[in-house]
């Protein structure tokens, strides 16, 4: 493995389905050993990019390079990438060990050796005791691990994961997130992870590409995407944002262009806050939603702007904000993120 080459390099990658352009001239480099997420709403093209890398679809235009080698025209079975499918795609007529050994079997490795290797892969996902079961006898989380073992046993250079945690319940998903991260660190291979769950992407990834309408809207570390979104779409899709269009920005912030402020960067008090760069605006509480770890307050500012404020449930916090209360919403000027001036269709203002 040459460290200089990126694991994946996409150049001008385009995929059209009839009149629909699912992927629109995507250029992207993913480094070796990176945990890379492709995040976006459904229909944004992220899954199509994954399927193009796997070889299940042929691009209309553009190239796919794997460690410097052009694999655009190669069949899926000739590419050193493996996929964990959204529905796991376990072979229902084979037991767990045969499922995991399948990739070794079609490579002509003898039964004894492939069963040993498959058993090791199963042990790495702590399922060795279920080797004889059929997939239908497993729980969702167990199937997910079998799919992971089956894809990693053939030692791919890049592992593609298509919303692998989507079908699991919350507790299990959080547990699997930790395991995925550990497995990726142990194997040291590149993970490309497709998800529509922004929290999952933020938790797991080294870098994230946010997809929208077949294009990459923004590429960056979780921190960059969350703290400094460059467009309204990203500010809106990654986390929750209070968006201020140009007019509101001029009126409230004295700045031109669109801006956003994260709900947790805002504070609600009765008298306002002092300090340099602090903005205080009066408003009325419309809704107070208790979240356990905090309270989400929806406040209508006096000029009609509705904002959401997230208050942490910390010692000494005032618990008495109620619907109809008059309050002051405050934020610091440094926490205002400029989003440029472009006007997105569908967002009024």
């Amino acid at each position, binding site marked *: 493995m040459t460290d200089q080459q990126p694991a994946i390099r996409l150049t001008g990658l385009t995929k059209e389905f009839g009149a629909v352009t699912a992927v629109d001239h995507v250029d992207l480099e993913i480094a070796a050993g990176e945990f890379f997420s492709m995040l976006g709403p459904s229909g944004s093209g992220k899954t199509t990019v994954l399927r193009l890398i796997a070889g299940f679809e042929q691009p209309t235009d553009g190239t796919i390079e794997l460690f410097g080698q052009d694999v655009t025209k190669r069949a899926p079975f000739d590419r050193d990438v493996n996929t964990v499918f959204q529905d796991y795609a376990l072979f229902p007529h084979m037991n767990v060990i045969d499922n995991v050994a399948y990739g070794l079997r079609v490579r002509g490795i003898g039964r004894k050796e492939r069963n040993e290797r498959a058993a090791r892969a199963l042990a790495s996902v702590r399922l060795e005791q279920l080797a004889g079961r059929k997939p239908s006898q497993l729980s969702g989380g167990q199937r997910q691990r079998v799919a992971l073992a089956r894809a990693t046993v053939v030692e791919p250079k890049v592992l593609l994961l298509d919303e692998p945690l989507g079908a699991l319940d919350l507790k299990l998903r959080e547990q699997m997130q930790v395991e995925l991260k550990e497995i990726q660190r142990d194997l040291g291979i590149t993970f490309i992870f497709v998800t529509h769950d922004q929290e999952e992407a933020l938790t797991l990834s080294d870098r994230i590409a946010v997809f929208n309408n077949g294009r990459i809207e923004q590429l960056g570390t979780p921190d960059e995407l969350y703290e400094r979104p460059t467009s309204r779409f990203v500010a809106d899709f990654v986390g929750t944002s209070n968006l201020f269009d140009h007019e509101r920005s001029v009126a409230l912030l004295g700045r031109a262009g669109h801006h956003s402020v994260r709900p947790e960067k805002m504070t609600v008090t009765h008298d306002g806050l002092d300090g340099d760069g602090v903005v205080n605006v009066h408003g009325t509480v419309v809704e107070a939603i208790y979240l356990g770890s905090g309270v989400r307050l929806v406040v209508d500012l006096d000029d009609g702007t*509705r904002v959401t404020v997230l208050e942490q449930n910390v010692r000494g916090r005032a618990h008495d904000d109620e619907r109809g209360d008059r309050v002051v919403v405050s934020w610091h000027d440094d926490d205002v993120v400029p989003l440029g001036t472009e006007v997105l269709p569908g967002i009024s203002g």
Partner: protein
Amino acid sequence: MTTHAPAPPGAPVPAPDRTHSPVPRPRRTAARAASVFLSTHPRTRLALLLGAPLFWLGVVYIVALVLLLVTAFWTVDSFTGEISQEWTLDNIITVLTGSLYQTVTLRTLGVALLVTLIDVVLALPIAFFMAKVATPRMQRILVIAVLTPLWASYLVKAYAWRSVLSQDGILEWLVAPFGGSTPGYGLPATIITLSYLWLPYVILPIYAGLERVPDSLLEASADLGGRTWPTIRLVVFPLVLPAIIAGTIFSFSLSLGDYITVNIVGGANQMLGNLVYTNVGAANNLPLASAIALIPIVIIFGYLFLVRRTGALDNL
């Protein structure tokens, strides 16, 4: 959750409109009372649901079959031609030991096996194309194309083949330039015609079976390094085997019982069905006909037993 600015100011929620008349409650009718009764009496419900079909299955179907079985152990008074209800194994022994019956049984079995083999070989690629390659529109057209021949009369189709296979028929005209000739009437013609007749019955279950194999399984196999042939052998074939067997049960059992096609295109050859027909009609020997009719039943039971032993029906 996202908040867009500017949001509409917190307008008061309009009060629900109370001016329209209230939603009417269901009226108490006899039908409704019956529904209520049935919903609280599951056994009555089940009895009403299954009564008619069980009567049909029990009386009309099974009794007829048992009568057939019983008749095989009776005999015919050779003088009066009346059936005499004396128990005897003579018919069974005749059928098992008579060289005519042995020859015809083997011939019928051979024809049925060949027809089944040909149908499976033809049906697999057609069904695969229909289920996995064709566009949804093409898929519908093909399903209709496969079903359409079933609307035409069996006799018409058999006679059509008689004309195709005749000495001056289309087949002769087609292959003569290449030095071939029509097989004429005989067992090959019977096999060709029967294969044609039963092909839809084999295509449809295999097509349905392939439809149930998710595309992601084929992708998973390719993804793990499986080329076309390993994918078919290790993934597709085991998953559609029950469907293939369902199709073969149709073509095999229908071929075993056929006697019209062989009459029309089979030349002088006879199959088991012809023997049954002759014994019921011309020879007026219903007990012997019943004994002959037991042969395909026994063969089919044997086939089902074999299939069951392979475990192919476990996933049905």
